[in-house]
């Protein structure tokens, strides 16, 4: 059944668009071009950041970091291997993507750690970037409790990612 989900979405959206007399193919093309543009803008960052991630891993720094943070992470039930991802996620989106992809490659995409990394990436945002863009554009100087509340939401996200993967993929 789930095998037909993704192809089904492709057909259903196209059929709905045709019923509304929309040019489905052109819209798909436009969206795909947007996706390509987005990818092109992040490729240079992805290359630099994966270089950095590989350096951290080869030098043993990544392992030291996860060992060092392991007591804290284990207490909350977050896999310590994801330490670097958790630290970098609120600061840089492409760095988080690089770290997460590396975790998935290293431990396997369908491993608990690989899945946790994927869920963390998919359900959190680049918090500091978002805050600076919004408040910068709106001209807000006093941010009051926005940063702690947003970071708390991220923390809940990391916890829930670890727990939900354990629950849904036993």
């Amino acid at each position, binding site marked *: 059944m789930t095998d037909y989900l993704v192809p089904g979405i492709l057909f259903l959206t196209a059929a709905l668009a045709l019923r509304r007399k929309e040019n489905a193919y052109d819209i798909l093309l436009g969206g795909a071009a947007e996706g390509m543009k987005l990818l092109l803008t992040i490729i240079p960052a*992805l290359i630099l950041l994966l270089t950095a991630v590989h350096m951290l891993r080869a030098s043993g720094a990544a392992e030291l970091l996860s060992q060092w943070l392991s007591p804290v992470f284990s207490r909350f039930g977050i896999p310590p291997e994801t330490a670097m991802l958790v630290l970098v996620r609120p600061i840089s989106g492409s760095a988080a993507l690089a770290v997460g992809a590396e975790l998935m490659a290293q431990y396997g995409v369908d491993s608990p750690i690989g899945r946790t990394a994927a869920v963390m990436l998919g359900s959190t945002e680049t918090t500091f970037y978002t805050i600076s863009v919004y408040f910068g554009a709106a001209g807000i100087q006093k941010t009051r409790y926005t940063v702690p509340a947003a970071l708390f939401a991220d923390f809940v996200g990391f916890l829930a990612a670890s727990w939900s993967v354990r629950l849904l993929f036993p």
Partner: protein
Amino acid sequence: MLMSWIWAGITGLSILCALLTGQGNALSGAVMEGAQAGLTLAISMAGSLCLWSGVCALMEAVGITQRLSRLMKPVLGRLFPSTRQDPALARDLSANVCANLLGLGNAATPLGIRAAKRLKRGSTATDELCRLIVLNTASIQLIPASVAAVRSALGCRTPFDILPAVWLTSALSAGLGLCAAWLLGKVCRL
């Protein structure tokens, strides 16, 4: 500027750790290997990412956005009481949330900023503005296209099997984040 410090810090830290653990050889190999891995990842993501960006654009075109905004109206009205007097604000806000839901980050940001400007009262963030930011930093996504692209690039046959976990996680993080904002708003009256 921040990224420059991070970059310098990472390279310096790697050298230091390599010296301590005697991994100098592996470190120099990792530099080229990492750069190549970055490009390889980007290229193998491209197909899936483009396809899903297209599908998300199509979903928006067939009116999912309107349907979702009707569903969200009661919730948004409660979270942002100003929307009751300001229909333009209500439109921008629900379009912002919908664009986030469909993973159209490029479309979501300008809409969110427009809503933020309408919510703004002076140079201090209001409770509603804080909630808007928390909602945007919590990222509720129906289809996390780039993560699915990474997964299929790495050989995953079912890149979307994490969807329920992603939905559960983002709902929890957004919900509890908003609760935290509400509580902090009661405590902090500046």
